[in-house]
């Protein structure tokens, strides 16, 4: 499939991208927005996005086929891992979910079109209109394609011209997505730009920061701080910093029959995007006292990862990433040889997957790429004490529990500061309407106009 040189990231020569070229691109985006996007209705835009998502679920879609054929070389993920990730994402991108998102974050389906009163909002003496940024810039941080795609969809809903700035070598899937939108709606495609350069290239970034009225950025805290410091006053900044996630399995969930299913779900969470996302688990805390012990759960998780490797392989790694896994395995192998408080299960003859059982409840950062810890705990308090070092930095907890305890555990996690709790197996599948790092993603993009009605109304 020959993609036309439509976006900046399509141009093979990176030196062609100068500040002047980027300025022109931003001005063209704003102009196209005025002509083609500003007056579209929400329902119409939702329809476009839902159609697009449906197309991506079709195995004959040339863009999807391109993603699966060339994605492994471009992203390092196996075709199966990419397929699973794309499916999880596009499945959620339905008309119904998009409408729910607008309603949840803005209170009325027409809020982005005209002054309206929310039906469920208190008092009808005030109308509201939500306006998106004119030029919304996304600074994509990681290797996962979903976050920039979600950002693009949100920006479409707010009728914003958008530019996605990808880190070097990471624009492959955002580009394909943009081309696929361009194919079904060229006018909307004309309001998007995808560019790629090495972060910190200040000549280019200064152009962006001057042109954009809202910047959304994902990345490490230091990167976000550096960006924030360079923004003109009045430019809105939405920073999504580094987060980590873990799982928690309560003893009542560890019945003989349920445990294998839970372990398979946990394996799915570890395998999704090879554990590279903020929502991927580093550790599973498993309560003692269930029919199935934490050690046995770890063993089942290992079996789950081995089984998953058969139909969703991790794929090859560059030497440094493989060396990180190999070195950690060597460390735990010696410990496991000395005491049964450490145990190790790992793929044979490869670094494909690793499970470390360790009785120390302190949270441990994984080296990722399907390397996960299982830690036994007496109760949630012990787990949260162990995770104290990452308090405030936890995105998702995958929770397996039942009955009144499930409610109590969720409440406890919420009060501790976790921003998302979900069942095991869904950690890397946040719903479209999820509050990213605890913030309303769509709601944070808009600026409101309130109209307080005169009393005669």
């Amino acid at each position, binding site marked *: 499939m020959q993609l036309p040189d439509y976006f900046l990231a399509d141009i093979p020569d990176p030196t062609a991208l100068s500040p002047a070229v980027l300025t022109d691109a931003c001005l063209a985006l704003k102009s196209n927005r005025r002509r083609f996007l500003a007056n579209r209705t929400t329902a119409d835009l939702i329809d476009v996005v839902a159609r697009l998502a449906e197309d991506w679920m079709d195995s004959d879609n040339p863009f999807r086929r391109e993603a699966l054929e060339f994605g492994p070389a471009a992203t390092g993920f196996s075709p199966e891992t990419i397929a699973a990730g794309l499916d999880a994402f596009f499945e959620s991108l339905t008309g119904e979910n998009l409408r729910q998102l607008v309603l949840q974050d803005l209170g009325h389906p027409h809020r982005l079109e005209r002054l309206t009163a929310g039906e469920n909002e208190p008092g009808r003496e005030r109308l509201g209109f939500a306006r998106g940024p004119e030029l919304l810039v996304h600074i994509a941080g990681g290797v996962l394609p979903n976050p920039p795609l979600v950002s693009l969809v949100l920006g479409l809903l707010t009728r914003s011209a958008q530019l996605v700035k990808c880190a070097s070598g990471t624009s492959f899937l955002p580009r394909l997505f943009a081309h696929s939108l361009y194919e079904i709606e060229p006018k909307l495609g004309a309001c998007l730009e995808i560019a790629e350069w090495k972060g910190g290239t200040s000549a280019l970034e200064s152009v962006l920061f001057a042109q954009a009225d809202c910047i959304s950025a994902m990345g490490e805290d230091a990167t976000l701080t550096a960006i924030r410091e360079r923004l003109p006053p009045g430019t809105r900044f939405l920073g999504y910093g580094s987060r*980590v996630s873990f799982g928690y399995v309560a003893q009542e969930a560890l019945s003989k029959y349920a445990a294998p299913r839970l372990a398979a779900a946990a394996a799915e969470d570890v395998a999704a995007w090879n554990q590279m996302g903020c929502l991927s688990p580093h550790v599973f805390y498993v309560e003692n006292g269930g029919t199935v012990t934490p050690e046995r759960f770890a063993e089942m998780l290992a079996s789950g990862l081995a089984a998953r490797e058969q139909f969703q392989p991790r794929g090859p790694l560059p030497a440094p990433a493989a060396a990180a896994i190999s070195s950690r395995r060597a*460390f735990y192998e010696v410990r496991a040889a000395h005491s049964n*408080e450490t145990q190790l299960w790992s793929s044979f003859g490869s670094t494909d997957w690793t499970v470390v059982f360790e009785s120390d409840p302190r949270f441990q*950062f994984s080296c990722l790429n399907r390397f996960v810890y299982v830690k036994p705990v007496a109760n949630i308090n012990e787990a949260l004490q162990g995770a104290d070092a990452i308090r405030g930095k936890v995105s998702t907890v995958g929770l397996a529990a039942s009955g009144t305890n499930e409610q109590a555990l969720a409440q406890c996690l919420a009060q501790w500061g976790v921003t998302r709790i979900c069942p095991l197996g869904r950690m890397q599948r946040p719903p479209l309407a999820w509050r990213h790092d605890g913030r309303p993603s769509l709601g944070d993009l808009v600026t409101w106009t309130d109209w307080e009605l005169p009393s005669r109304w």
Partner: protein
Amino acid sequence: MIKRNIQLSDFEQRASPGDAAFEVFEGELRRFIQDSVPFGTGLERDDSDEQEARFQRLALALFRLQHRAVGPLFRLCQRRGIAPEDIGDWRAIPALTTTAFKDYAVTSLHLEARTRVFHSSGTTGHRPSRHFHSAGSLAVYEASLLPFFRARLMGGVGQGKGEFTFLALTPDPAEAPHSSLAHMFATVIEAWGADDSAFVGAVECDGGWRVDTAASTALLRRCARNGRPVCVLGTAFGFVHLLDAMHQDCLQCALPPGSRALETGGYKGLSRSVLKPDLHRLIGTTLGIAPTHIVSEYGMSELSSQAYDACVPASPLARGAVDPPARGATNSGAAPGIETGAPQWGEEDRRLSAGHSAGEPAPAGARVFHFPPWARSVVVSPENGIEVRDGETGLLRVFDLANVRSVLAIQTEDLAVRRGTGFDLVGRAQMAEPRGCSLRAVAVAT
């Protein structure tokens, strides 16, 4: 620290070989070292069948002793279901990871015999590796160090006692008793150092090392004035400290011909990092030491032998010229038969991204690390532990016969490119952090 169930395993119930068995081995090793040292030719590795067979026999014999005497090795073998008699080739000897030296006493020495311990350097708050030594094991360490150091560094100079001036940019062993590097430098100075040789490093209160730059420049000036060549020994960050300070004071020094430098190790956040070719260039321009006379060392506290990436030529033609040789010039100063020629200025770059990726041949003139004949390096695939092909990247594993009282097979966390029987360093595995938006990984051990 993790609580551990201490279980009496088969290990405690076995008869451990006594010190005498190790002493017999040490005698054989010393003979092997003596026979392997063809002085003056740069110690090119002799890959003859005879040499190989001798290494093989010694490695297997030592492994069998260590298997019975070193608890962590015994337990690792037990976990893997390996009996010593299963191992028929030195490459198959189970390698113990360097991180095991943090958790366990990897030694066959009894408590009372452990008179010295070398720690790995590391950032504050990390537990160091501990490599225990006795008087006997230190003697072996020195027996391994000196002949290979002489072959690699001491070409063209008098090798009698007190004949050469050394400037060590590290603290001396009295101040840094747990540093294997300080011990190494002290051993070299003890063997050949003139009376004016000096240690100019000091230990800071945070444990970091500082270089007394005033004392260093004073000594260098004195040597320059008297026309006495000097050998500067230091870590990369020690050199950067010194060179930065000299640069700040607009000092340059044309050290007498025959002066040389040995640099080792990384930076560990203690000074600005400089790429190795840049550091060598800086050493050249600031101290007037020729590129042929700058040698990089690879060593670690868990080993007893060192690898070097060059050999200072003995030929008088290479007399420490300050001007870099022209690109493409032949290394006219190198003695015939020396395997590693001088690097071309600016062309040596050890970064993975700089063209040393898997499968590529070494650039012409690139320098390659080699251990002495009694220690061998193997670069293994991190995926499956099998030796990689020439030019490919993997983890460095070292088989060091001089590690008599710990374990001879050491699995490092260093990434290296295999270059024939040698290697080229590209980084440390634990520094490798996967891309992604997760928080930076912290070290495993605390």
